């Protein structure tokens, strides 16, 4: 499965996939797409690395160790979009800017509450996806030792026939 072709294309695809994810996230206000799908796309980019290069790969990539913490960051960002208006005396999740006002722009990107919320959702989904993948991959290593341990214990008990 891990021929050179797979390896090279997996490596080449990593950055473009992340860019597509970013695009999906910021385009989601007039076109299909949102933080959730962007998060899934970005996590899939890392799933591909994991499939091609094996379980140890995610630990070798830079910064991947800190990605699971993105869940917390994302949760806090999303929660802030909900609760900051409530601190300012409006109802939860009140949209900024108010209806009718124009939003500050940077190119075609508008800075509105929904964007902040979506960034939060992206971070949650991305962090969750990568976190689950990398912890399963890391557990795979531990599994081997544990398998041996239990097998030894069963052999010692003389009931090795139970292992399925």
């Amino acid at each position, binding site marked *: 499965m891990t021929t050179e072709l797979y390896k090279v294309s997996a490596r080449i695809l990593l950055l473009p996939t992340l860019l597509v994810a970013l695009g999906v996230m910021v385009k989601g206000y007039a076109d299909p797409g949102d933080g959730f799908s962007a998060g899934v796309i970005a996590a899939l980019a890392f799933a591909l690395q994991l499939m091609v290069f094996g379980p140890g790969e995610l630990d070798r990539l830079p910064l991947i160790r800190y990605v699971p913490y993105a869940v917390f960051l994302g*949760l*806090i960002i999303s*929660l802030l979009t909900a*609760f900051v208006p*409530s601190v300012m005396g409006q*109802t*939860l*999740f*009140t949209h900024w800017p108010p209806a009718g006002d124009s939003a500050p722009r940077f190119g075609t990107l508008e800075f509105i509450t929904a964007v902040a919320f979506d960034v939060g959702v992206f971070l949650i989904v991305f962090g969750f996806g990568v976190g689950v993948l990398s912890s399963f991959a890391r557990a795979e290593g531990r599994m081997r030792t544990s398998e041996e341990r239990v097998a030894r214990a069963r052999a010692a008990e003389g009931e090795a026939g139970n292992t399925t």
Partner: protein
Amino acid sequence: MMELPLGILWFGAVIVAMLDGTRRRNAVLSIVILASALVSTLVLGADVYRNGTQEMVVGGWEQGVGISLRIDTLGIIFAVLSQAVLLAALVFETANGIKARIFPALVLFMGLGLTGVFFTGDAFNFYVFFEIAMISAYVLASYGETPRQFRSAFIFIVVNLLGSMLFLISIAALYHTTGRLDMVGIKAQVPLVAESPIVLISATIFVAFGVKLGLFPFHFWLPAVYTGTRASVVAILSGALANIGSYGLIRFGADVLPRELEFGAPVLLILGAVSIVYGGVQSISRHSANEVLAYSSIGQVGYIMVALAIGGEAGVFAAILYTVINGLNKALLFLAVSMRGWLVGTAFAIGAFSVAGVPPAAGFLGKLVLFQAAIEDGSWAIVVLVLLGGGLSFLYMFQLYRRRFWIAGEEEEESAHLPQVIVVGMAVGLLLIGLWPQPLLELADQAVLGIMGTDTAP
């Protein structure tokens, strides 16, 4: 600031989730967060009590368009009860030494889910908060990580996930038939649409909440889970999480779908009666303490069903009171039975009396109100049933007390002090409610008025 308890719990849970919960410092932080949420809920409750139901539509949308938070006295009662039970269990576990780093965060997330369930006015939002609470419960059920706990956690997850799916399906069906998702809107629309689909939906909702409660035909997961996990987790599951079931039945039955509740009253009555007898008889035949208490929970839930089946204002009033007292009873008993010492024994005895309905413990109040409702309804069969159930519970509680606190003891050392203090404090609370029930009665009365009366604002 009606969303303050939710805000405190939500931010608190996220922050605590990042920290190592086995450290005492972080556990204390989570206790402080939960306590401040409880205080803010109480403040909010005082406001709701004085000024009536509070409502807010999220995002400044129109009523009926956006998701609404709707806080009435019923929600406040259940939120305070659940947070108090969670707080007691969290302090208990902290005093005994927390073994898993995620435990305090899970308790906070469950508090958030429960508070959200009790505060929301939107049926789908109800499901979302409900799942937040359930997912934390799934993880909590495997806390301890022995094979027995894994197996019981699996049973718990599978059964409750099925229950959640049924609930989700019934919400979608309600939306399909009424075109609304806010509970006020559904309540207004239900009399205008065809009756038969709504009856089917109500049956599905009943099954979904019956699974959560551990009512008789849906109880099979309950003993396995309650005997498989740790004392604090069982206290949380039985004293806080199970409230979702009775709250859901009261909210969706008595508030949103009253006609269907009346229609299904015979079924509720029969299932409740079978639950009471089955739970009582099984409890007597069991030996391990947690098993006795688990079957006892099945029996106690039966009373809530019977109260709902009696219906009317008196019945719903009795159901609310009984749920509150039952939650406190179960939390106290599950915590107390895991410990040793004469103080704990006394606290356990008070809890046992409360379950059996012996004055002056609070359980007497619950039974009394149920009696009143039954007599008002003129059904002597229910009176006999309640008496029979009370007799059975007195029997198994006495057996359990004898086995646990009279005979045993000499070889085991007494438990640590702080957990004992918590259990004794809960017992004193039960006694206080029994001796001075006026505030609780008045609150429950207002809650009934809020859901049965035509106008929400007094």
